[in-house]
């Protein structure tokens, strides 16, 4: 049996999305910047896509800027805000649990003498808004807090954070890459100035994202060149990807309630089974303010990648830490920031369910997981298998 439980890394393309894209890969191949009929045809499709996306998030079409993905959107938001700021000293506030697209951009900006404050989450994986307001100084130009965390799925109080930033005249950006599929996003209601998304996280194509940029917000360019995207993001418009992204978001919006309900039930049942039947299994992040499809556990005494590989051998795709961090030897910065000890952080597995996940699949996964944990503990020097307890060397 093949079971894909890594929907936070990427999602399968919706067949209707592919269907919408295909004409732009065949006869409608024009460059959207061209004046002739081939170009106008592409241009119309891009305009329509922009309107669809705007409608989905309650923005204006002119506030939607297409990028190559969530990473570029994040880079652009941060670097663009810094490059356009006239402040002598520049200060950014973010959190310890952001995606590397934010954290490594902050590290880059720190090299350029931007000061960065990293807010620590609670043990439950939620940022305390009070810490945000206390961190704002007269130098603060931007605060960026992710909508939902990619590893543990915790949902942050974005509306409250945006309100505080607005009061202080500080720009507010949110990385909503993980949130778009399951959360209803209304940028007006949220009051954010900028918001990043990436199509492949909601059954759209890879290589396309959006930065929502509120009318009136100024932002330096990340990529200079032609006059595409109202002159703010150069490069030949990738029409098929844009059409696909719009279609995917439209479908996601339409089916959100019904998918969320089903996935949440499967997810909660799985968490209950794991916590009650696998000893020394810990759920990372709170259970309530959390994406409906995310379950992230640490299984004490055994290492995450070997769990992942065992599940993989049984056809089950999961992630240990974030996909990006895999292959590195460091424990997840997100799990560590919750106060989880390093050895336990190394024992972490993320299950991210999707629209295709079934109860039967989850039963299968549970059984394989239970046996895997059992088998690996038998060979763990940290676990006394006879006694069923941990014994650190």
């Amino acid at each position, binding site marked *: 049996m093949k079971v894909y439980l890594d929907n936070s890394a990427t999602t399968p393309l919706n067949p209707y999305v592919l269907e919408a894209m295909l004409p732009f890969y065949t006869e409608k191949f024009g460059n959207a910047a061209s004046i002739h009929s081939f170009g106008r045809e592409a241009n119309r499709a891009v305009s329509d896509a922009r309107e669809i996306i705007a409608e989905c998030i309650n923005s204006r079409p002119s506030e939607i800027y297409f990028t190559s993905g969530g990473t570029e959107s994040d880079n652009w938001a941060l670097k663009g805000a810094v490059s356009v700021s006239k402040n002598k000293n520049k200060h950014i506030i973010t959190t310890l649990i952001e995606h590397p697209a934010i954290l490594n951009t902050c590290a880059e900006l720190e090299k350029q003498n931007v000061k960065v404050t990293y807010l620590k989450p609670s043990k439950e994986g939620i940022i305390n808004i009070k810490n945000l307001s206390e961190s704002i100084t007269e130098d603060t130009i931007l605060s960026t807090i992710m909508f939902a965390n990619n590893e543990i799925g915790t949902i942050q109080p974005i509306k409250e954070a945006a309100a505080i930033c607005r009061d202080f005249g500080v720009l507010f950006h949110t990385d909503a890459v993980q949130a778009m599929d399951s959360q209803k996003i209304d940028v007006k209601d949220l009051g954010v100035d900028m918001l990043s998304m990436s199509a492949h996280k909601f059954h759209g194509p890879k290589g396309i994202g959006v930065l929502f940029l509120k009318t009136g917000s100024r932002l330096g360019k990340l990529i200079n060149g032609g006059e595409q995207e109202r002159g703010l993001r150069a490069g030949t418009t990738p029409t098929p990807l844009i059409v696909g992204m719009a279609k995917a978001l439209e479908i996601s919006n339409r089916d959100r309630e019904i998918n969320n309900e089903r996935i949440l039930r499967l997810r909660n049942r799985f968490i209950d089974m794991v916590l009650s039947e696998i000893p020394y299994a810990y759920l990372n992040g709170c259970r309530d303010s959390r994406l409906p499809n995310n379950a992230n556990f640490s299984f004490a005494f055994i290492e995450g990648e070997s769990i992942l590989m065992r599940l993989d051998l049984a056809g089950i795709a999961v992630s240990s830490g974030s996909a990006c961090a895999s292959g590195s*030897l460091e424990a997840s910065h997100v799990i560590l920031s919750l106060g989880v000890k390093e050895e336990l952080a190394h024992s972490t597995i993320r299950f991210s369910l999707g629209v295709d996940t079934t109860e039967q699949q989850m039963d299968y996964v549970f059984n394989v997981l239970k046996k895997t944990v059992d088998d690996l503990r*038998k060979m763990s*020097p940290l676990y006394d298998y006879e006694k069923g307890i941990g014994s650190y060397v």
Partner: protein
Amino acid sequence: MYNDKVIEIFKNPKNIGELKDANAIGTIGNASCGDIMQVYLKIENNIIVDAKFKTFGCAAAIAASSVATEMIIGKTIEEALSLKNADVVAELGGLPAQKIHCSVLAEEAIQAAIKDYKEKNNG
């Protein structure tokens, strides 16, 4: 990432567990780095007559533990000491670059166990 042989060994590792009558134990690594390897040896007349391991670590670490213990059973202490991490990698048919350190752990765990044996018997 891993070749088929590594996967196969990871799936069915040999020599898992404690050796009740071990007279040499070596432990290398620490959990906060994500790797601990513990090797148990039974040494008789300078010959390693049995070896087992317990490993907290990734698939490569577990596979390396398995082949390393297999490679030293029946060998003299001197032969076991000459086992290099490259031999373990070769036996595994290669490892991804970022996993080479797992083979080093296996080499070091065996050396630590033999050191333990020598200390107990000569010290």
